[in-house]
Every structure is written in structure tokens, then in C-alpha cells.
């Protein structure tokens, strides 16, 4: 289908600091005991997209991620990994690999997307409109833990800051305006010329940019070449394209046609004009056509390009793992309501809930839980809505609620863990109480200590 897929896996992430580390980069962060990257790759595989370019920040990270991919998706996917320097942003990453892009259109997917929206739908929308860029929008997921109301207020405040303002045309097909998080302070500026051309704009703030884009390659490369300062696809490139859609400056939308005609006869060129006029007249004109043509009806003088939106249907699941809260949410959803994301993904067949772990007497494991292979739980424990990784040893009288416990964690007797994330190789000694905490990999929590809403991590040496 002449699409190239670029997965922006990223590397370390500041938002997830205690959880990710050199050894465990963000793409490999386990969500329900599977690296988050596997969700994207699996979905692409299901959609028959088997040639991928995975872009990873940092060479070491690339090695780790590459090793994991080759171990998991051997014989199933053809993956090429590109390492890019850190902190060059998503646009920089694309710029770094842009000379490898050859297909007509590029599908850019963020590696931290956990979603069941078929990428084909985005691509098809893109093709149908012959757009310069198509972005997938999805409704903002419900954030925060379901039952505990303690952190609800804080989350809400956080969410307010992440508002996206998205303007759509009445048909909900074209993006007219997009402003994300940081740009919005008190007032939003809307481009007047676009508003005038369309006549009507629907402003939505309940949609988020899912970071799955289809770009026309020529446009993307040109924008990246022209604008050296652009750092991020989401915050620079996309708004730029949306802003300039009615007066695209150097975007080669229609130039190639002229080149092709160059050596042909004049008559055939006339014919082409004729043909394109028939085609244009027969199709429903979008506002692009209206605004580009002069009032006296002569041929369009201004170039335009289309920025489309694909809005994921309300029933589909689509969340980005870009914060600790999102990490918790995804873990909860994937084991709970969105468990179809797990079924059939065969990267690790031992993902079922509790076949192999050894449970002590009077230990209860509630619904929506996941226990990894080889984990042992002592007597009289309670596990609710939690994910516990492989080869964990949990003592007696331990309560784990709404938490994520990764692999090889040792938890002493009498610990209480609530709404926390405990990374791999952590040792919790006896009677530790954690609430809303994040414990970095390899940390040792001394016996009897109590923490609330803190992030604990080993000091970097």
C-alpha cells in the first residue's frame, strides 16, 4: 500500500523517572507484564504491516530494545532499528531517518500508544482525502483510579493543564486548528482566514492527539528541511501544517504534475487539465478548493493542502503511556475492561492470571489481577486490581491494591502497597507501607518505613 511505518519508541522519559532507567528504557516498560512497545508492534503486525522502522533514543537503549525485538518478533516482523541522539525530539528523530523514507506516505506511530484502533483506518482516511497529514484523535481517557478518591483532585488539576484544543470542520473530517498543552494559557488564537474559508468550526477539548499520524512523505520532508527549529511533530509540525493549510508555502502538492508534463506535448497537457477539471467538478469540493480559487473563477492560484483527522470511535481503546498516572491506568484497563488487547498476543503465553504462581493459604486474588509466572505469595495475602510480575516473592499478610509490581520483587511480611508502582528487583522489607509511591529498580526499602506519595529511587552513581 506504499506506506512506511515509523515507530517512535523513545528512550528515557522524564515523566516516568523512577520507573524507567538505563536498563529498562521506556519502550520496554512492562504493562501487564509485557513491554509497552509490544502493544504497538503487535497491532501493526495484525494489520499486516510487517516492515517497520523503530526509532529509539540513545545507542544503548537501541541495543536493548533491538535485542528484545529480535527475541520476540523473530520471524514475524521485519524491524529495522535506528538510534538517534537523545533530546532531538520527535521531529528530529524523523529528520535523522528521513533519507530512509521512500514510500509515498509515512505512518508515524508513537511507541507508547496502547490502542486497538486499526492504523489502517488512519491510513485509509489519509489516502481518501489525499491529505498532507492525517492525525488520529481519540477521546481523552478517564484518568485516575476508580475507587480511591484521594488523588482525584490532584489529577484533575493535572489534566486541566493537558487540554488540547482542536478545531474541526462541520463534517469532522478536517483539522482546522490544533493547540496543545503548553501553548494554551488563557486565550486561544484562531486563524481567521481558515475560519472564514470554512465558515463554521467546531472546537473540541475532549479529544486528544493520539500521536498516530499519516504524513505525505514529500510534505513531511520538506517541512523538516525548511524548519530546522521544529522539535516535535505534535507541537511544531502538525500545528504548522494545520495553520498553513490554505496557503502552503513550498509544499509540493501539485508541482510534480508539472514536471511530468514537461517533456510531453502541449495537447496532452491540455488534456490533463481537462481531465483534472472533470474530476474536480465531479467531486464534492472541500473548503480548500473554495478558498483557493479566485472569485472570478479562474484557476486556483494558492496552493492548499489538507489536514485530516480520524476520530477513533468511542468504543475503541486508545491511551498513551506518557505519565505515571497513565501507566497505572493502562495497567488497570488492560487487565480489566480492555483485556482484548491481551488476548491473542502471543509474545508470552504465560500471561494468564494465576495458573502457575504458588498461593499460600487464605490468600485471595481479586478480579482484574495478573500474576506473572513463578511468583510466590504467602499466607493471608490480598491482591486486588494489581499486576504482579514474574518471580516475585511475597510474604504473608501482604496487601497489594491498585498497584503494579514488576519482576523479581521481594516483598516482606506485613507490607501494604496501595496505588504504587514497584519496579524490578526491589526489596521491600517487613511492614513497609507504601501509598501512591513509585519505587525505582533495585531499591531497598527498609523495614517498617512508611511512605506516602513519594518516588524512591537509587541514587545514580
Amino acid at each position, binding site marked *: *500500500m*506504499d*506506506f512506511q511505518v515509523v515507530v517512535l519508541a523513545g528512550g528515557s522519559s522524564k515523566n516516568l523517572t523512577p520507573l524507567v532507567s538505563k536498563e529498562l528504557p521506556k519502550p520496554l516498560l512492562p504493562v501487564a507484564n509485557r513491554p509497552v512497545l509490544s502493544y504497538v508492534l503487535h497491532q501493526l503486525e495484525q*494489520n*499486516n*504491516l*510487517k*516492515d517497520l*522502522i523503530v526509532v529509539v533514543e540513545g*545507542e544503548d537503549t*537501541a*541495543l536493548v530494545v*533491538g*535485542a528484545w*525485538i*529480535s527475541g520476540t*518478533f*523473530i*520471524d*514475524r*516482523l*521485519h*524491524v*529495522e*532499528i*535506528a*538510534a*538517534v541522539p537523545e533530546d532531538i525530539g520527535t521531529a528530529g528523530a524523523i529528520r*535523522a*531517518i528521513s*533519507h*530512509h523514507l521512500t514510500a*509515498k506516505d509515512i505512518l508515524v506511530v508513537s511507541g507508547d500508544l496502547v490502542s486497538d484502533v*486499526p*492504523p*489502517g*483506518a488512519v*491510513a*485509509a*482516511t489519509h*489516502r*481518501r482525502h*489525499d491529505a498532507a497529514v492525517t492525525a488520529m484523535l481519540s477521546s481523552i481517557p478517564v484518568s485516575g483510579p476508580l475507587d480511591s478518591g484521594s488523588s482525584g483532585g490532584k489529577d484533575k488539576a493535572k489534566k486541566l493543564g493537558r487540554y488540547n484544543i482542536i478545531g474541526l470542520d462541520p463534517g469532522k473530517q478536517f483539522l482546522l486548528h490544533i493547540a496543545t498543552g503548553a501553548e494554551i494559557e488563557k486565550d486561544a488564537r484562531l486563524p481567521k482566514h481558515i475560519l472564514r474559508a470554512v465558515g463554521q468550526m467546531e472546537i473540541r477539548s475532549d479529544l486528544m492527539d493520539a500521536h498516530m499520524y499519516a504524513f505525505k512523505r514529500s510534505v513531511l520532508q520538506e517541512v523538516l528541511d525548511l524548519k530546522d527549529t521544529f522539535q516535535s511533530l505534535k507541537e511544531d509540525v502538525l500545528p504548522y501544517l494545520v495553520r498553513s493549510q490554505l496557503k502552503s508555502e513550498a509544499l509540493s502538492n501539485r508541482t510534480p504534475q508539472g514536471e511530468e508534463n514537461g517533456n510531453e506535448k502541449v495537447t*496532452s497537457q491540455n*488534456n490533463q487539465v*481537462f*481531465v483534472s477539471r*472533470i*474530476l474536480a*467538478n*465531479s*467531486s*464534492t*469540493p472541500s473548503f480548500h478548493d473554495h478558498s483557493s480559487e479566485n*472569485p*472570478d*473563477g479562474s484557476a486556483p492560484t494558492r496552493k492548499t493542502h489538507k489536514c485530516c483527522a480520524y476520530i477513533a*470511535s468511542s468504543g475503541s481503546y486508545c491511551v498513551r503511556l506518557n505519565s505515571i498516572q497513565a501507566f497505572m491506568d493502562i495497567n488497570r484497563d488492560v487487565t480489566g475492561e480492555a483485556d482484548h488487547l491481551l488476548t491473542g498476543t502471543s509474545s508470552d503465553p504465560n500471561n494468564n492470571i494465576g495458573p502457575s504462581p504458588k498461593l499460600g493459604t487464605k490468600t485471595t486474588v481479586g478480579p482484574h489481577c495478573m500474576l506473572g509466572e513463578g511468583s510466590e505469595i504467602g499466607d493471608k495475602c490480598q491482591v486486588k486490581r494489581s499486576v504482579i510480575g514474574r518471580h516475585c516473592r511475597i510474604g504473608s499478610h501482604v496487601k497489594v491494591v491498585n498497584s503494579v509490581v514488576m519482576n523479581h520483587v521481594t516483598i516482606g511480611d506485613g507490607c501494604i502497597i496501595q496505588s504504587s508502582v514497584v519496579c524490578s528487583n526491589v526489596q521491600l522489607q517487613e511492614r513497609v507501607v507504601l501509598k501512591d509511591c513509585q519505587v525505582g529498580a533495585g531499591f531497598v526499602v527498609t523495614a517498617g518505613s512508611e511512605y506516602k506519595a513519594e518516588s524512591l529511587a537509587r541514587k545514580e552513581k
Partner: protein
Amino acid sequence: MDPRRSARTVSDPKVRQVGFFTPAAPPERSCSDPPRQQDLIQPQSPSSTQVNDHFRSGDSLSPVMIPPPPHHHSDTLHRTALQVTSPKTAFSYSARTVTIPTENDDVPSSLSPSRKVVAVKSPSSYPGVRASSVPASELTTVSVVNLPPGISEKAGGGASVEVQNDRPVRSKSLKEKTSKAERRAMQEAQRAAKAAAKAEGTKASSAATKVVTSANTKPSKAAKPSSQKNDGSQFAASEKKVGDRAPEKDRKKDAPHPRMQYDDTSRVEKAKKRAVVKQTEVRNRVELFRHLPQYEHGTQLPDLETKFFELDPMHPAVYKVGLQYLSGDIRGGNARCIAMFQAFKEAIKDYSTPPEKTLIRDLTARISSYVSFLIECRPLSVSMGNAIKFLKNQIAKLPLALSESEAKATLVSDIDRFINEKIIVAEKVIVKHAVTKIRDGDVLLTYGASSAVEMILLHAHELGKQFRVVVVDSRPKLEGQLLLRRLVRKGLSCTYTHVNAVSCIMQEVTRVFLGASSVLSNGTVYSRVGTACVAMVAHAFRVPVLVCCEAYKFHERVQLDSICFNELGNPDAISKVHGREDINYLDGFVNRENLQLLNLVYDATPSDYVSMIITDYGMIPPTSVPVIVREYRREHLWS
């Protein structure tokens, strides 16, 4: 209703009149027109057999201008016709068996039963290799990683065999392996590589040879125990490809008949199984039109979109056109035909004959699969049907000796020629003819948005003729507004009204120009729904009706009503008013058992209402359509 019917049966038993008829049609249509027009109308009771006689006696005043056909071989028609039909039926068998031996030289002269297994396997292992051979080539540096895939794979170590195999599939530039010598060279290389692999590891080679020579019994089991993961999986992949391919071929073989009767449940079920596009049928359909396909609108597009990457055999350009048909982004006979041909052109340019196949047969099958996909998106228009017939015929006529690139170039130029001659030049000729019918002071009425009519009006305006245009439109498509917009912008003076008011506005009209989707051989004009109504009113007011239609849209079918062949649009379009939320009287009623919504797309205008048809062969009475079909079909389709 009743009096009309009885009157008709009594007055003219000769002609079966179905559809729109005014009570007591005037015996002579005439007046308000120059005398030439009268000649044209002369054949009052059309019946196709008379046409010839009429022509022979053709009076000198007649505006019919039919040049004799350039070459006239009476029997070529039959011969070529045979040629066309034969590949359709036989392609699936012969293509394979003929060419096997040349491709599989390295198979140690296998027994005849086993040969069949090999034949299935070897071509399919080409694409299969691609996915399996390359264990995610992790290369840390940017520059090395994304070399053109054929090269980067070499880093994968012992995959040299696959690298050779890969190339033709992976890189597009290499796809056009033109000469036999080249192919042979590649085989040679493969064999060498295989030998090398044998030397390296006996395990691998044994697996490989097993794959190739394994007896006809159960090849998959034979290969599975092979310890080398690479080979096993490669094999599995290849197997899967074979699986994929069977249904694809199936689909090609029994593509839904374009005129399938959709009230036959068993057939509909069968068609559904094959269909690429998910088709949920609307439950409440009007009894008379139950044989036509009607699908739940809005379910098809999202479903097709999700499958975007899963339809391997579909070319992206074709896919795009299909999506555009489905979403209504492209409509109108000419535009759909051009869009389809441009997509096919892309597809042909990217086409490369798979090994062991001949271009003629494989490409025909490929085109057929595209066409059946397009039919699923939206039923074909007559113009597209004729164009497809033309293309398939051109493919069938390709000399066998032609090399692939030459054949492709020929086809592309054929397509260009078709678009040029049959659509572009035809329209220009139509405009030239039609403009002579426009005089100063005329009031011209048109319905809907026909590209030909638009061009006529614009051209007449450029010539400085003083006339007024009445654009009649109808819900739900309101295509007339688009036409109106373009006309007004060019400075024509226009009146816009809806079809309900046509009887009032008709009084001041002096000529009616209509477009057509097709003209059938009994002179019936098949066009956007509402055309018949306009033509009938014009006839009642004795206003001449001129239909502009390119000759490639003519069809030899005879149709008396608009029931047996038609298309059903989205019923929601008529039950809701766009932009008027307050008109919601039907909300909640749409799914009632006793409510049936009918949104017809086309209707048939009887030839009685048509004064003249303007085609690229001149201005003809509707009774002369069969002549054009007979004389020129041969030229432009079978020549």
C-alpha cells in the same frame, strides 16, 4: 391513474410504455423549433428493427451525421469475442502447468504427482521468505540501519539465500525484471547460494531440500521437525501465503455478477462471503426494488478503512478510488471512469508478472479482481463497464511476443488514448455540435450537473451568445448547486429551482439540455433520477429535449423501466435534511417494519421524450442509437 392506463392500451398497443408518460401524448411534437428538428423526430414509433430502413432513406436535411466506419470486417467481431472470453474461463489451470519445468530446474526431475505440490510452493516461497528471513536487523547506527533493505539484510549473517530471493519482491525498482536471461541469472545465483548453504550446515540444507522435494503427502509435517527455526518458520510463512492465495483466486473466479439479483438469499450469502467490503443489508426495502443491492450506509466505509493494510492484492491507487466511490467523493460517469482508468494505469505501471504466469492472463485476472472490488464499493456505471471491456480486450490482444515493459507501455498508452478519444475529444465534439443549437434569447434548462452540458453552456457563453440558464436541482445530492456555482462565477445569468417547480418554469424554457449516464439501444436515456420527470414535462410543453452523451456510454441493453437495473442510494439521505436539525419527523421511525424508504439513483427516460441525442458522432435521433452501438462498438472495442 386509471383513465390514463386505459387510454394508453387502447390508443397504441404497439409500444409498451412503462414509466413516465403524460396522458394523451401529442401526436406530433414540433413547433418552437427549426424545421430540421422535425425531421429528426420523424420516426414516431421507435422499434429497433426499423432503424436501418430509416437510415437508408435518410433525407438530406437530417442532422444525423454518421460517417461510415473505417474498417468493416464482419467476422472479426466473432473471433475477437471468442478470444476475450476464453482466458476468463481457462486461466487458472494452464498458466501454472505450462511454465513449471522452466522455473524449477533444480527439482530433481520430480514425479508427476509431486510436481503439482512444488508448483504451488515455489512461487509462494518468494514472498514468504521476506517476513521470516530477517530477524529484526538491529543496527544501532542510523546510517547503517536503513539501507535499502536488500543490502541491509546481508548483515543478518547466514541469510544469503534469502537475500537473493528477497530482491525481486522487496525492491520495486528490481521488480521489472525484463528479460529471460536476467531471470535465469537469478536462478543461477539462487542455486549457488543454496549450494553454499548446504556446505555450511547440513541441517539447514536438509530442511531446505525437504522443503523443495518433499513428497506430495504432507510437506508441512516433514518440515516442522527441522530444528532450524529459520527454515521452519519460512516454511510456515510460505504455507500461509498459499492459504491466502486460494481465496483470492476464488474471489476472482466467481466475482459477483454485476447484475446479481439481490433478492435471492442464497446467492447473496455467497457473495457476502467473498466480499471485501462488509455489507450489511438494509432490512426494509421497497418490494419492487428488492433485487437491487442496498447496504446499511455508514457501515461499509469504516470497515473498509480498517482493512486498509490487509488487502494485499489490491493496488493502493485502486483502493483509493474504491474508497472515493464509496464515500461519494467521486461521482458522475465520466469522472468515475477517468478515476478508475487512472488507478488502473498506476496498477499496470507497478505490475510485474509473477513467475510461471503469462502477462495476458494474469493481468486480466488482476484487473478483474480490481473491478470486483470496485463493484463492491459501488455498482459500476455503464461508462465504466464499457471502459473495462475495452481494457480487457486490449490486454487480450497483446501479442505474446511482447516483453513485459513493452506490453505495459502499450496498455498505458491505450488507456490514455481511450480517455483522450472517448471522453475528452468526444466532449469537445459534443460541445461543437450542441452550440449550434443555442441561439440568442434562448432559455436553456438543465437538470443536475452534467459535465458535458456545463461545457456546452460555458462555450456558448464564451462565443458571446445571449441566453439564460435554468438549473433544476433535486434533493438529496443538490449537485445542481455546484454547477450553478461554476456557471454564476463565469458570469452566466442563471435561475435555480428545484424539480418540484419544473412545471412552472418550463413555460419560459426554449430548450432542455440533459446529461446521461447511459443511452440504451432502444433510445432510453438512463440518467440521474429526476431526468425523466424533467423530460416528460418538457415534452408536455413541447420543448425540445437534447441529451448530451458520449458514445462510449452507449449500451446495447434494452431497458423499458427503471426498475430492473438501478442503484439504491442511502435511505438516510432522504429521511434527514442536512443542516436542518429541526426537521426530524422521521426520527425513530426509520427502523419501523412498515416504513420503507426508497432513494433511487437513476431513472430511465423513454425515447419518446427525447428529441435528439448529441454524441461525438453527431446529432442523432434516439432511434439511431443501435446503429452507433452496432457500427462503432466494433471499432472502439474490438478494433
